[in-house]
């Protein structure tokens, strides 16, 4: 898929652990892993909004488009 999820990079920059992020987002660690590994088919705006708020970033920092 040409959409790349850079969540792990942003998480490393913010020094936040997966467990804590999942708890604050209100999702399971398994779902966060699906998101991090790029296996997710879609992301809800509400989830993206919460991610940006917690990680203090823009959606573009998390998602990136790379043409194949």
């Amino acid at each position, binding site marked *: 898929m040409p959409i790349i999820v850079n969540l792990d990079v942003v998480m490393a920059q913010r020094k936040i652990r997966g467990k804590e992020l999942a708890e604050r987002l209100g999702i399971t660690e398994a779902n966060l892993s699906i998101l991090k590994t790029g296996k997710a088919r*879609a992301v809800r705006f509400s989830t993206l909004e919460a991610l940006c708020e917690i990680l203090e970033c823009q959606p573009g920092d998390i998602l990136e488009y790379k043409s194949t």
Partner: protein
Amino acid sequence: MTSTTFLRIGKWTITVLQCIAIVVPFLFLLVSFSKNDAGTYDTPLGFSNVSLVPEDPDAMQNLSNVSITYVKDEQASTELTIEKTKIHLRDAMASIRTEIFFIFLFFCLLAALGLEIVKRIIRVTEFGTPFNYRTVQYIYILSILFFLTPVVVSIYHYLFGQWILSNFELSGLVLEGQSISYVPWVTTSIILFTIGQVIRQGVLLREEQDLTI
């Protein structure tokens, strides 16, 4: 009646039908050979729509001018009898019964396979997980089975007719094969295929829903 009870009854019924489908050909063989000594067992030529009929309908009254001879053994006892409008052959030849048994067994096993697939679909429905690719595969297999049944039966009719013509000398008799109607079988096959496609779309949607974070 709750849906669970209905599914359970369906599963039991299918299990019983499967047992019947497997046991019946062997019972047929057993009865057929046990009555062989008595020499009165009636072996119709085929268990489907392949029949012997007289060329001249008037000959039906007294069986005049009709005869049948087993080519491989002219001394083999054969006797023609009338049942309704068809002529059946009473015989004492084991080979005919054995061949009919194997063909019969093949069809029964095919039916048992179809029933097994339905039972598995019922089982996953009972567990509450019917929307998966396995169920879609089961429905596609059922669809293919329904589609192939009239084709297989037609091939059987042709082969059985050829077998009769090569093994028997028919005098005043002709072979009559009523062709099987493809419409209900093919229609059912198309309906099943469509249901399979619908479930496949459902599985895709569920997957998408599951992978939406």
